[in-house]
């Protein structure tokens, strides 16, 4: 059975779509005259071979009806498509499942998926940090305060809403760390503004209200950045603000005018979101670039509308 079957495959291939009627005619022709069949010979040798083979089958044994009955199952569309599929599988299997298109698609899909998942993972990590202090039962950093800016105007925690805020606690008589950190803060601020626009309020809250009145703060801060807002108040206001931000400070409660002393205080930058919630503390070990990158990433994660966004413009 295998030999005629293979031949029939060839026939089906050669005949193409109209295999059934042509096959029937060919059987007829092979019986009546060989010259007629040769006149229909196409250039393909395989077709010719097939016809000779068919002739021999027909001539040897059976009449046309029997042959027709034999060949018909091979010309049925169902079996043809089945055979075609086997053929295709064979052709495909020659090279295996690997080819250039598949490789490119695989790499593109894999790379895209990896990039997306990495981005999502980082975003979720940031979100987790940002959400850590939201909700019930979480440590609360930040809170309401009412202080005075370096122009002598009232500045409350409500004035922080609608923009991210970068809060730093320091004092003007700080020997070395605060000035370095404020220089860094200026760099950080400029980087964030360059990438995200004016969505950040830079705040410096003094821990030394006895010496840092608005005038002193104004003189001090203008050397670092013109946009910096310096906040001061009376001793209790500052103490409460520091407490809200979990800032340790050692300011003496009563000082004589002109007295010389230093203040110990925590040295973190606090990033607060446009709703006034704490996002992340940025320590001294971060460079300006790294700190700016952290802030920019958080700012880009913000999906809600910024409230009162023109307040400081």
């Amino acid at each position: 059975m295998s030999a005629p079957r293979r031949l029939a495959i060839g026939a089906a291939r050669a005949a193409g779509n109209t295999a059934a009627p042509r096959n029937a005619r060919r059987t007829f022709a092979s019986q009546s005259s060989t010259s007629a069949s040769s006149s229909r010979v196409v250039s393909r040798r395989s077709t010719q071979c097939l016809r000779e083979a068919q002739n021999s089958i027909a001539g040897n044994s059976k009449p046309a009806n029997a042959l027709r009955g034999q060949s018909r199952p091979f010309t049925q569309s169902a079996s043809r498509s089945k055979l075609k599929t086997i053929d295709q599988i064979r052709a495909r299997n020659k090279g295996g499942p690997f080819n250039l298109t598949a490789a490119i698609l695989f790499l593109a899909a894999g790379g895209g998926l990896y990039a997306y998942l990495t981005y999502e993972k980082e975003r979720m990590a940031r979100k987790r940090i940002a959400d850590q202090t939201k909700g019930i039962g979480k440590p609360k950093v930040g809170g309401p305060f009412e202080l005075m800016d370096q122009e002598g105007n009232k500045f409350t925690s409500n004035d922080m809403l609608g923009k991210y805020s970068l809060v730093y606690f320091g004092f003007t008589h700080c020997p070395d760390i605060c000035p370095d950190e404020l220089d860094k803060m200026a760099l950080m601020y400029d980087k964030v503004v360059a990438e995200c626009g004016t969505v950040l309020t830079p705040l410096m809250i003094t821990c030394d209200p006895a010496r840092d009145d608005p005038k002193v703060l104004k003189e001090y801060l203008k050397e670092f950045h013109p946009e910096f807002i310096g906040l001061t108040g009376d001793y209790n206001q500052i103490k409460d603000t520091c407490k809200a931000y979990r800032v340790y400070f050692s300011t003496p409660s009563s000082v004589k005018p002109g007295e010389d002393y230093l203040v110990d205080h925590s040295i973190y930058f606090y990033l607060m979101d446009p709703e006034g919630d704490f996002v992340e503390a940025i320590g001294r070990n971060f460079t300006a670039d790294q700190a700016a990158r952290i802030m920019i990433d958080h700012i880009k994660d913000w999906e809600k509308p910024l409230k009162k966004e023109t307040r400081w413009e």
Partner: protein
Amino acid sequence: MGWFSSGPKDEGGPAKTSGGAFESPTRSTRKQCYAARDAFFDCLDKNNVLDSINTKSGREKAQTFCSQLDQEFEKNCAHSWVEYFKKQRVVNYQREQTIKKIEAQGGEITAPQLPLPGQK
């Protein structure tokens, strides 16, 4: 009185309050102060003096070798800053020694700090 004594100094340090603090610390006064501090500390280094504030012997040695620079230091910095920097010098040295000691023993120094971005 404070402004009478500190005001007219021509090459002297920045304006100070009666208590010895800066009237208004600025970038230039800080720079002056740091320069005076570094000069004084260089002198201490040359004379092999580490502690110029906590011990009596240290104070005496600093007085013997570097009294001129010490006065400059006091003149250009707030008094609290002078004390702060002198103590910081000792603390910094001790920290370096501790780190060296641990590293010599094959230990690794991992200062407690927040993770940097990109570090997992």
